């Protein structure tokens, strides 16, 4: 059967699951064939109905924090938001560490369009080798597609701007049609671009070469990763760079449906994290207290012990937890919690938003409950 891989925001729709898993990268394979979570209460196996009932009892009348969500479907995210409203809970995913709202307003481009016409790709604070392993081969550098038929050496130019020489940077450095810029300050790199355009001296001399390459084509893009989105306090100067160079911007946040969560939250609440009890934005400085203050945390499709700073994840381990997840997680293993096992999203059906904003439909291929089913049951019980 053909499935959409949901292990990262490339959302590869060409994956074939037969006797073996074909075309998915190692990260995707780990999701598709990974060890599944078991439904349990405090470590003891339990039925779905029982776990839902106990979970609901835990939530009723308590201060609830809902966390995770960026790896589940748009439909599940919507229901989670409804639960947050109804139970006056706090809701957040991992995006509170980024300053992404302003970046999403920049001119952007669909990956297929870039594949067919794009020339210069600038990976800035982004190492797709880890976060989106097939991004270069599917869309950015290697495909011979549309107007780009001559192969990467003639028809593409890969730039990596990063603090360290990542695996992607090594490819750029090795290639005749690539360049690695080792940076220690994102602002200085932005300023360097602007200064060279204005004919002034700058810190990062390599930008002159990049600007020359940009002139060769109309479609060029910056792929900004967590490194960039974390470090820049605002997008003002970056916006100037985009305007002056005419390049497009695509965020490369790796969680499969990170963009779906962000778009839903901005549309429905105006913010990335929200406290419905206080009916206000949950700003970065209030996150620690929100974790401390909650009685119960509902964790959806996430393993906070792997993804959150220790000071936050540690607090969660001391709370009552309801964990809705498909694959085994550390948090479920080391805590006494209500764990509800769901189908992995490549089989569960629904939709997700790819990093470039394209909605990808996922066909339901399994009878097992999805995150969406469980969240609905939790509301309705």
């Amino acid at each position, binding site marked *: 059967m053909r499935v959409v891989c949901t292990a990262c925001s490339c959302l*590869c729709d*060409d*994956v*074939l699951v037969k006797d*073996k*898993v*074909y*075309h*998915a*990268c*190692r*990260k*995707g*394979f*780990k999701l598709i*064939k990974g060890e599944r979570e078991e439904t349990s209460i405090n470590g003891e196996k339990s039925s779905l109905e029982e776990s839902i009932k106990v979970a609901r009892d835990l939530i009723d009348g308590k201060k609830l924090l809902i966390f995770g969500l960026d790896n589940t479907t748009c439909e599940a995210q919507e229901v989670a938001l409804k639960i947050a409203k109804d139970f006056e809970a706090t809701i957040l995913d991992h995006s509170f560490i980024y300053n992404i709202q302003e970046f999403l307003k920049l001119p952007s481009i669909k990956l297929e369009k870039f*594949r067919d016409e794009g020339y210069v790709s600038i990976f800035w604070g982004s190492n797709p*080798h880890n976060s989106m*392993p*097939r991004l*270069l*081969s*599917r*869309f950015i550098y*290697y*495909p*011979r*597609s549309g107007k780009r038929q001559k*192969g*990467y050496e003639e028809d593409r130019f890969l730039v990596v701007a990063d603090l360290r020489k990542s*695996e*992607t940077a*090594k*490819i750029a450095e*090795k*290639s005749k049609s690539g360049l690695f810029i080792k940076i220690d300050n994102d602002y200085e790199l932005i300023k360097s671009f602007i200064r060279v355009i204005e004919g002034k001296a700058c810190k990062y001399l390599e930008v002159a070469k990049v600007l020359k390459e940009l002139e060769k084509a109309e479609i060029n893009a910056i792929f900004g990763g967590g490194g960039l989105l974390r470090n820049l306090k605002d997008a003002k100067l970056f916006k100037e760079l985009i305007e002056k160079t005419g390049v497009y911007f695509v965020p490369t946040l790796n969680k499969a449906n990170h963009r779906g969560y962000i778009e839903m939250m901005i549309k429905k609440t105006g913010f990335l994290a929200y406290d419905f009890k206080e009916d206000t934005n949950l700003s970065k400085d209030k996150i620690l207290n929100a974790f401390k203050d909650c009685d119960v945390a509902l964790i959806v499709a996430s393993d906070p012990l792997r993804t959150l700073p220790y000071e936050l994840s540690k607090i969660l381990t001391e709370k009552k937890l309801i964990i809705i997840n498909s694959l085994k997680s550390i948090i479920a293993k080391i805590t006494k919690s209500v764990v509800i096992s769901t189908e992995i999203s490549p089989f569960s059906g629904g939709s997700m938003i790819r990093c470039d904003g394209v909605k990808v439909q996922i066909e339901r291929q399994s009878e097992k409950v999805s995150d969406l089913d469980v969240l609905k049951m939790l509301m309705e019980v």
Partner: protein
Amino acid sequence: MPNPMEIYKLLPKTNCGKCGEKTCMSFAFKLLNGEKKLEDCKPLYSKEYDVIRKKLEELISIVEKAKETGLIINEELCIGCANCVVSCPVHVEKDPKNAGIGRGIEIDEPILRIENGVVVVINLSLCRRYGKNRTLCVICRENCPTDAIAFVEEL
């Protein structure tokens, strides 16, 4: 893939000549390119070399495996990014609508295919490095971010 120095370090290093070579170093080179066999080094088969011989046998088995396919993939390093599959010019020519544009390769007997998260060599006879009109193509190896690909004849 082991290099001659790694092999040499494990040999007796006495230059006894029993293998027919003047030095253990030249024996190491010939062992790697298949001109000599481990059994040609007689001292290795005394008891004191039991542990070392086992290590050498392991290293040589990697070389043997590579010779069967001509191309060796280090599965531990491979992340299944498919840079090699998509950049391979043969795949572009034979599967322009899939591998050529970055999608999973769909022809029956490709050179390389991603299976269970890592690249697998399926049909090396299509590779430009082999056969009648061979060229020194290194595209797949050059574009592997983890150095997971090696060609036997370059080792």
